[in-house]
């Protein structure tokens, strides 16, 4: 005689797997993963015979099933929590979390092979020489990255992060290649502290850290330009912060499992809202954008919205041209940048007649001829010191 209790397990098993299938079919696909900061795979329902027979289509379907699996973010978040419960040192093999302070610390980087650093130095040399042909001066700036200068608390048995050594070596190679360069950290050291300068849960600097960077940037650049340009003094009274919860980039990789009370803060003169004409692209393209649509979009968001760094300050534009009517210098400055510069782009722009900002990740142009044709007065490449390639990661 069949025992009814023997049905319990197979029926439960079937309900889970068939239920998962049905929910998957009924769930609307998501185009983007906010946590993973990437586009999710969509269904390819009309594969070509070649895609089918090569096995490419089956791979696409597997990626699609994985990307669009019901409650994917919840599963991923629970996996991070599981790693924390079992005491994994580096969650998702990337970040350590100090539960007491809420700091997220990256796994120590290894020393980069000299060839890799030399390759970047060589790219910078080509860039500098290409600009020199048109008598355009150039300086390479490395900006202090959180991963390099925020190392505590870190397990005592782990080796030191090689970020500083990599950065030092790179500057040596760049100097040897005859390219003007500057390690911004050296000019920020007086009041440098990781706690003040960096977010606990994001890989960027805070407004305070960015402001120190801006001050050092303007001071050192004014020396190179031979002009007296003084940075706008930091005014504590001008600082205001949003009530919104902050979605730090490293916390997003950990599926927002790290509690934090971090805030998005700003420190800028009121005149910024009106003194610039901003072009999304070149002036000739003629596509203008209001200041509030470019910088600090989070200010317009509702207080309960979770805000990330790009929404807080600025997203990455392929090319942004800022024309300033209240300038100190009538120079046209071009900055090739990564996301660290976004926080201070208008602070820097406030000193020059024209500032062009280029992001090579999105700019689909040959950079040297393009810069030569632009004929700016000065070109700066400003990357955070973890970026060791001309094409930032």
């Amino acid at each position: 005689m069949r025992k009814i209790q023997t049905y319990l397990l197979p029926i439960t098993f079937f309900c889970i797997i068939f239920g998962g299938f049905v929910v998957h079919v009924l769930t609307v696909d998501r185009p983007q993963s906010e946590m993973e900061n990437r586009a999710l795979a969509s269904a390819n329902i009309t594969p070509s015979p070649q895609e089918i027979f090569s096995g490419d289509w089956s791979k696409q379907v597997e990626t699609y099933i994985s990307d669009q699996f019901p409650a994917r973010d919840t599963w991923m978040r629970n996996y991070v929590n599981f790693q924390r419960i079992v005491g994994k040192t580096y969650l998702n093999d990337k970040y350590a979390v100090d539960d007491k302070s809420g700091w997220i610390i990256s796994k120590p980087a290894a020393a980069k092979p000299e060839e890799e650093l030399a390759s970047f130095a060589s790219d910078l040399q080509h860039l500098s020489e290409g600009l020199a042909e048109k008598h355009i001066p150039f300086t390479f700036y490395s900006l202090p990255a959180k991963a390099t200068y925020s190392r505590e608390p870190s397990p005592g048995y782990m080796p030191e992060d090689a970020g500083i050594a990599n950065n030092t070596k790179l500057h040596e190679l760049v100097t040897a290649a005859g390219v003007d360069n500057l390690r911004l950290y050296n000019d920020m050291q007086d009041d440098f502290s990781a706690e003040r300068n960096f977010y606990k849960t994001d890989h960027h600097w805070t407004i305070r850290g960015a402001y120190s960077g801006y001050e050092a940037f303007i001071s050192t650049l004014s020396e190179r330009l031979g002009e007296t340009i003084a940075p706008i003094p930091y005014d504590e009274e001008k600082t205001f912060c949003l009530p919104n919860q902050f979605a730090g980039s490293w916390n997003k990789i950990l599926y927002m499992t790290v509690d934090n009370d971090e805030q998005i803060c700003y420190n800028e003169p009121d005149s910024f809202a009106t003194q610039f004409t901003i072009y999304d692209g070149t002036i000739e393209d003629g596509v203008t954008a209001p200041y509030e649509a470019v910088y600090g979009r989070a200010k317009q968001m509702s207080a309960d919205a979770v805000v990330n760094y790009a929404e807080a300050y600025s997203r990455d534009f392929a090319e942004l041209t800022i024309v300033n009517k209240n300038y100190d210098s009538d120079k046209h400055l071009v900055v090739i940048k990564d996301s660290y510069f976004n926080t201070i782009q208008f602070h820097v722009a406030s000193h020059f007649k024209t500032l062009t900002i280029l992001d090579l990740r999105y700019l689909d142009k040959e950079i040297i001829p393009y810069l030569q044709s632009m004929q700016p007065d000065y070109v700066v490449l400003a990357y955070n010191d973890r970026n060791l390639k001309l094409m930032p990661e």
Partner: protein
Amino acid sequence: MVFSSLIFLYVFLPLVIVLYFISPKMLRNTILLLASLFFYAWGEPKYVLLMMLSIVLNYVLGIVIENTASQSKRKTLLWLVIVSNLAILGYYKYAGFFVDIINNYLAQPIEWQAVPLPIGISFYTFQALSYVIDVYRKDVKAQRNFLDLSLFITLFPQLVAGPIVRYQTVAEQIKKRLATSEDWMIGTRRFVQGLAKKVLIANPMGEIADHVFSLSGGDLTTGTAWIGILAYSLQIYFDFSGYSDMAIGLARIFGFKFEENFNYPYIAQSVTDFWRRWHISLSSWFRDYVYFPLGGSRVSHEWKLYRNLLVVWTLTGFWHGASWTFMAWGFYYGILICLEKWVLLKWLARIPRVLRHMYILVIVMIGWVFFRANDFTYAFAFIKTMFGLTDAPLYNYETILLTKDYAIYFVIAIIFAMPIYKIYHNWSEQKASTSLSFDWSLRITQTIYYGALLLFITMFLVNATHNPFIYFRF
């Protein structure tokens, strides 16, 4: 398609189960065959044709051999089928290896474009060979129904990584089988156990092994080397036995009863014992189709016994892959088994049980170094580091980090590599058979446990990127 993937678990399997059980019985084999072909074609559509060629060849020649009266003709036909099967296997798996050897002696090297290895070819070729040899030996009747023979060779639970199922085992079940609720329960339980072995233990162990075996000599310490080889030893066991559990469990859900493929090999007390417990279907295949025909242990001179053992074990190593390291790995076991037969087993019987365990664990781990390493240079350097014969330090931060982060996985893996759960399982099932109330509480507990385990595994699978089975490449 991989069992431990979301697409298998949440798309393929539920759809096949529904289609199978709502179909009339006469169509169920066809459903399973179509599902199996789809399963195989999913990753490598073009190789379905190769597999079908193998099936047609063995189907036709099986019938021809059965219908041939003359013994010499039967033998010729048998050799024809063996050579044909091995030629297909040899072309895809071994041709590159032999061309490389020949090229070492030629002034004008032979040009050879490497061909990708069709997944599971070693398994289904051996399965097909066993069928034809059994027909030749008149142990079984040739299968006249082409669909049924195709199903025997392609049945998706065991198609790509075994166990190597004998035709005798499933011939009757292909014709007629009954899947009861108890079969579904046992099959489900076994499948989830296998999935857990693969996803929760083998994959994390694989992360360690991959990391350690990718370290350059300068970064490898003695401690890290031992962690790496321990991790690999556990990975390969849980990976392969997990696959076998899933295969046996899935087959049981559809009413097939397969033979066991593993029996806690790491509790063995000799190499001979180890190979009675590891990949049992392969060992018994070589025993029945190579060792016995060579004369086995019934030989006129003792040296022939050792010759037979060395031939069988070198071939076993070679079956795993076309490289000298695999062959050396097989030969290594051949030598050890010869030594055990000659004198070692008698000595081992006199030493404490714990030392016998240590002996086999060290022997097996050294063997796995050859199995895992790409070449002898790396394998010997790794073994030297394990035994402190290099300048490598005893440990470094990697050793501490791996120990700290994976201690819980090691503990769980070691516990489940021993038959502790099996003892509990046998006790509970025995008690359930005599007490209805205990039976109910056991089934409810199992349902909750395995349901939760499945969800826990899903959490790992959603996070997994790629987790192929080690034995897929054989």
